[in-house]
Structures are given as structure tokens and as C-alpha cells.
């Protein structure tokens, strides 16, 4: 896919304006999943701004964002990095064969107490 096309699509579907970012890094300072991410929230913002999106699409960081929205609430510039992560993730899982989770994986991953909410959320996040 065309690089500019993806960038525009991500900016449009997320509604995020990465130019508002002042590079303070508070999103990454507040991120609970930071250590498991290869690219951190502030990098999502600058990489999308620079159109450097392919590395993000191939990164497992996409599936580590917890959607806790802490970066959205604490950003002093109202940039909303989590919405960018979500938009990039959708750009990946919406492609054919790119679901991150399949029904076959499930039995191994759950226990007796697993709430339905967990399954529903995981499927919503990891599949199209």
C-alpha cells in the first residue's frame, strides 16, 4: 500500500493531529505497557507524523497497548496517542489473514474463572 495513503488513512480514522505534540514524553511516562513495547507511545506520534508507519505495523507493540487511555488523559497537548495505536492496529488486522488471534488459540489461554469480558475484549482488539 502507498505510504502516504496509509498515513492519511490513519490520521483520518484516528482523528489525531500529531503536529500538536510538543515532545514532552508524558504519554510514554504514563504508559503501563511501556516495557513490553518496542515502539512507545511518543514514538507512535512522531513516526506517524513522519509517515514512518511500516515498522509500527510490523511491531508487536500494537497488541500491547492496554487501551487504558492514560496517555490520552494526561497528554498536556490533547494529542491522544492511544487513538493512533488503535488506528495503526486496525490498519493491520483489517487486512486479509492478519487477525492476531483465532478461535483455535482460545482453549489454551483461558481458565475456569476467565470472564466473558476478557474474551470479548481480546477479540475486539486483535481481530477485524
Amino acid at each position, binding site marked *: 500500500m502507498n505510504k502516504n495513503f496509509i498515513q492519511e488513512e490513519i490520521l*483520518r*480514522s484516528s482523528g489525531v493531529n500529531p503536529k500538536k505534540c510538543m515532545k514532552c514524553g508524558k504519554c510514554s511516562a504514563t504508559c503501563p505497557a511501556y516495557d513490553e513495547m518496542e515502539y512507545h507511545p511518543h514514538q507512535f506520534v512522531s513516526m506517524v507524523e513522519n509517515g514512518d508507519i511500516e515498522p509500527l505495523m510490523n511491531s508487536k507493540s500494537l497488541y500491547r497497548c492496554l487501551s487504558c487511555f492514560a496517555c490520552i488523559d494526561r497528554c498536556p497537548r490533547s494529542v491522544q496517542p492511544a487513538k493512533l495505536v*488503535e488506528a495503526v492496529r486496525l490498519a493491520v488486522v483489517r487486512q486479509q489473514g492478519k487477525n492476531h488471534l483465532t478461535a483455535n488459540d482460545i482453549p489454551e489461554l483461558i481458565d475456569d474463572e476467565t*470472564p466473558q469480558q476478557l474474551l470479548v475484549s481480546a477479540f475486539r*482488539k486483535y481481530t477485524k
Partner: protein
Amino acid sequence: MKVSYFPGCTLKNKAKDLDEYARKSAEVLGITLEEIQDWQCCGGVFTTAKNEIATKLSSVRALKDAAAKEQPLVSVCSACHNVIKQTNHAMQTDSDFATKVNNYMAEESLYTGETQVYHYLEMLRDLVGFDALKEKVVNALSGKKIAAYYGCLLLRPNGVMQMDDPENPQIMENFIRAIGATPVLYAMRNECCGGYISMESPDLAANKSNAVVKNAVAAGADMIITACPLCKYNLIKNGAEIPVVYFTEVLAEALGVKEDTNE
């Protein structure tokens, strides 16, 4: 007073007690929870992308149902509340989105976010009133030091949720006071438990959950209450050393209807 009620998938299964305590307590407080007919699962998380339509339709149907009855829509589960409230906000503010959604709807009337969405806690605060709740308490939980665990979904994003100050919320603490117990303040109460990541990366979830429990224990809590089945699951699964229960359970206990529920 009658309100529309959206229980959600987990409350019909693994979190039956969250649901039943909520219903019994509401009755005592003079509120009838009318379950939305044929409700569908909210989807667990709100997809923030503007071009994601289908996953939000179930929430809109529930909202529309409540609008038809001119009732506020109440849910107990943090996740359901978050998804429904964010969807409703999108219907109010994003006309492009609202048009697309309305095109899916069978009825002719357009829905643009008229329904008032309440979390059960907000219902207690705004519709019942914590003072009125206090008067109905028959079994005050005095002496109990309870840590309120908000997690992420009740408070954030604050621009939409508007429940309370997202960094220093008071609603659950005031609830704890109303049922006669002592709230324990701790900073991790609005941090993430790991959420659905416990499916793929149990270590990360364990890490996050433990930090929450450790902080609550260090602050002197002897019990944690939550509104979210997934939070409860994560905290307990990762070995919380103090009990983690739904807030509706302590509510039912204080109102003297907990035993009825168990029967």
C-alpha cells in the same frame, strides 16, 4: 423510579453476583432496573477509530431503546459503561458517524445521543444521593478499610466519561463512606490492571495487578472493591492478598440484602 438497565455478557455468566447484588440493592433504594430487551454484548472495548461502525451498533440499539422509554440507561460493568458512554458521545458530537449509524437502524426516528448514560455508581450519587443511601444502610460496615479500585474504564477518557476528577476521584470513596466503612486512598487506584492483555501476556498483567494491590495494602486497606469483572479477575488471579469484591456486594451487605441474594 424506573431506569433502563444494560447488564452485559459477563454479568449473565461469570459475574452473576455483580448483577444480582445490583438489582437487589436498587430495589431497596426505590429504583427499578428494567432490563433492555434483547440487548447484545457491547464488545468489551470501545474502538476509537471513527470509521468503525458495526462494532458500535449494539450500544446504539440499547441507547435507542432507553430513549424510546425516556429513561436513563444504567450499567454496572465498567467496560459496558465505558463503551456505551463513548458511543453515545460519538453519536452526539460526530454527525458523520451518527448518520452512518442511523442508516443501519430499522426505525425511522434518528438517534443522536439523547439518552442519559449512568454508571450504577453515578446513579447512586446523582439519582439516589449518597445521603439517602446512608439512611437506608442497616448494616454499616464500620471499621472496614476499603480501597476503591477504579481502574481505567470508569474515568477515562475524562473528556467523555465526565464521572469524576480522573486523577483524584471521590465517587467510590464517598460511596464507601455512605455504607459506613472507611475509604483508603492510594495512588494506583486509577492505574490499569493489565486488562485483556492477561490473555496474551499474563506476566505484564501480573505485574500491573500486583502493583495495584501492593499499593493498596501499603496504604492499609483490608479489602478492594471494583466495578469491573476483568479487574477483579486480574487482581485475584495474580494473588491479591486481600479480598477483591464487587462494590455491589458490599452495598448489598450494608443494605442487609446480601443473604437474600445468596439463597
